[in-house]
């Protein structure tokens, strides 16, 4: 077996009907006429002109400035005569003007030629042949996603994406006329009810926070009817070696084991730096093993997502922390999403980490991975359940797997009915994003498409969607 056989054998022949059909279409295409190749002729003309001008300038500079138009044309002849006959200065008429070298600049035109070179009779050199290969328009399209000037409000669709979903939104909306802003999850619904149809306040909101009655608009508001759509899930899997079996972990255990700050067991309404080093300290029913979890770098987009998914569910089991939500939502997010910075959580490179080898030699370790990668590891690893639930499409759909969350899209019926742009943007955001954010190159790690979710493909279908029942 050659080293790269596994890559070579993935090639396959295109379908024969595709090849023949494409060839037939190509043969029917009108062929562009070949460009006229007059480069040599043009070059010859330019060469003569340059030589002629140089000769005239040189000859006149040596024979003196012309005192009349007639002298202008006879100066080159005089120069040639002098060269051929060998006449020197001493034979010149004493009354003639002393010959001086004249700066060439005196012969240059004093006006600026504003006409293109071709109009002046001097053609450009042939263009680079690669200009026939079309250039990418990617750069211009990517800029359309950035916040634009006030003038863009009238045409660009205002979209708000939760800050940690911003890469998804960018990937989905690239090339579309939108004004995309990132906001903390506590602020995503701000402005949803405000303004007219052309207001800068958001027409579309992408968030993992489910809308509640607290965000509803007043009964008289034109945006009171809100539709809710599901984009997909973000989920992580905790992998463990088959040799050592699963740990009976709850979401609360994970939070206590991996959060940077945890409730003080003596005073639960106070937070302390995480003191736990073994699993049995977190839960006496767990073994006396070191806490050791491999995962993506904490400050990377993948690491921040892992932090949110590993910790949020367990954080919400502490009443004191939930009460923080009312007092200081920002602090709650920090507390419930920040991973500890000691060796209990060990950063790995997602590119090249050998999950089976690392976990087989570490009996107490777990490793963070995704549902896309795990199937290729399951011959040697298991997916550790959390709260007795294993990650799969069914448990994601039921929202029973703690280390996952749903991504929602919200838009008002009013905006859907009054703007094609809103409908088109919604359809783009409901499409599966590419594996990689084309703007940043970062992978959209952890995303799982919501199988069976509603995906309207026409404006009528969007208009027919049921709205969220707020119970006015």
């Amino acid at each position: 077996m050659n080293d790269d056989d596994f890559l070579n054998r993935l090639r396959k022949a295109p379908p024969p009907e595709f090849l023949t059909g494409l060839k037939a279409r190509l043969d029917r295409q009108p062929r562009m006429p070949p460009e006229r190749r007059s480069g040599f002729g043009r070059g010859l003309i330019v060469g003569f002109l340059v030589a002629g001008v140089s000769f005239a300038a040189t000859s006149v500079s040596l024979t003196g400035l012309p005192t009349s138009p007639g002298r202008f044309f006879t100066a080159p002849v005089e120069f040639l005569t002098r060269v051929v006959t060998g006449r020197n200065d001493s034979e010149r008429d004493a009354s003639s003007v002393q010959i001086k070298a004249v700066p060439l600049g005196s012969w240059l035109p004093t006006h600026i030629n504003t006409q293109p070179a071709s109009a002046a009779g001097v053609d450009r050199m042939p263009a680079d042949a690669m200009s026939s290969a079309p250039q990418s328009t990617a750069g211009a399209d990517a800029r359309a996603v950035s916040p634009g000037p006030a003038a863009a409000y009238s045409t660009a669709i205002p979209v708000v994406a939760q800050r940690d979903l911003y890469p998804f939104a960018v990937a989905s909306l690239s090339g579309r006329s939108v004004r995309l802003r990132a906001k903390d999850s506590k602020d995503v619904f701000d402005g949803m009810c405000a303004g007219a149809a052309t207001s800068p306040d958001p027409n579309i909101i992408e968030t993992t926070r489910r809308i509640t009655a607290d965000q509803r608009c007043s009964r008289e508001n034109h945006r009171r009817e809100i539709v809710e759509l599901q984009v997909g899930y973000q989920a992580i899997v905790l992998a463990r070696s088959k040799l050592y079996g699963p740990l009976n972990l709850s979401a609360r255990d994970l939070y206590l084991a991996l959060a940077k700050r945890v409730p003080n067991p003596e005073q639960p309404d106070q937070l302390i730096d995480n003191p736990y080093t073994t699993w049995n300290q977190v839960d006496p029913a767990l073994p006396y093993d070191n806490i050791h979890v491999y995962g993506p770098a904490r400050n990377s987009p993948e690491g921040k997502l892992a932090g949110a998914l590993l910790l949020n569910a367990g954080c919400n089991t502490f009443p004191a922390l939930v009460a923080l939500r009312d007092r200081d939502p920002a602090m709650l997010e920090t507390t419930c999403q920040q991973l500890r910075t000691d060796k209990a959580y060990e950063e790995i490179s997602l590119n090249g980490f050998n999950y089976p080898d690392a976990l087989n030699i570490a009996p107490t370790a777990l490793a963070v991975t995704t549902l896309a990668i795990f199937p290729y590891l399951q011959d040697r690893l298991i997916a550790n359940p959390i709260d007795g639930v294993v990650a799969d499409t069914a448990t994601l759909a039921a929202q029973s797997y703690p280390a996952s969350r749903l991504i929602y899209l919200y838009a008002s019926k009013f905006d859907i009915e009054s703007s094609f742009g809103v409908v088109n943007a919604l359809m783009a955001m409901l499409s599966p994003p590419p594996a990689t954010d084309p703007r940043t190159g970062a992978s959209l790690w952890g995303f799982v498409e919501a199988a069976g979710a509603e995906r309207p493909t026409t404006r009528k279908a969007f208009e027919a969607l049921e709205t969220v029942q707020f119970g006015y």
Partner: protein
Amino acid sequence: MIVQNTVPDRSMDALSTEELDWDALYADLAPRVFNYFRYRLGRETDVEDLTARTFEKAWRARANYRRDLAGFSTWLFKIAQNVGADYVNTWRSHLPLEAAAEVTTEDTPARHAELRSDLARLAALTATLPARERELIALKYGASLNNRLIAELTGLSESNVGTLLHRLVKTLRTQWYGSDVSVRDE
């Protein structure tokens, strides 16, 4: 018509524009462009469309192709790279990844399913790689280009291409097979 992947024929590149056999070029390059997009996207959906777009752009302009400036393969794959970049940035498929229906008289359904799943597996493994590395894999193993042509297309030196590919293959092989396969240094 059954088309097999072939090694690039240098003698074809040495011919002048007027002498090029366009039918033979199509037969040689169409499968390679097709597989370049399969490897680059990591799926079957949209591959035929992108292959068609690449050839439509190139075919109309082939009369203006300047043989003295670049080999035809390089020129065609530059077009393919631009088509791919435009697709990634401006065009979205509304179909799920597994929606493409494949009909082939050569593959059994089991072989066909295996190919698709392995391609998805490769896509999952390369998803975390930088775009440059994914491009190298697609050009080398999808398009079957040699390192010299890859260097022209990517702007890297030929030796750099070789080194990068060697490291990439080593890493991917470890991830593909786990540690059961012994690694043979080249």
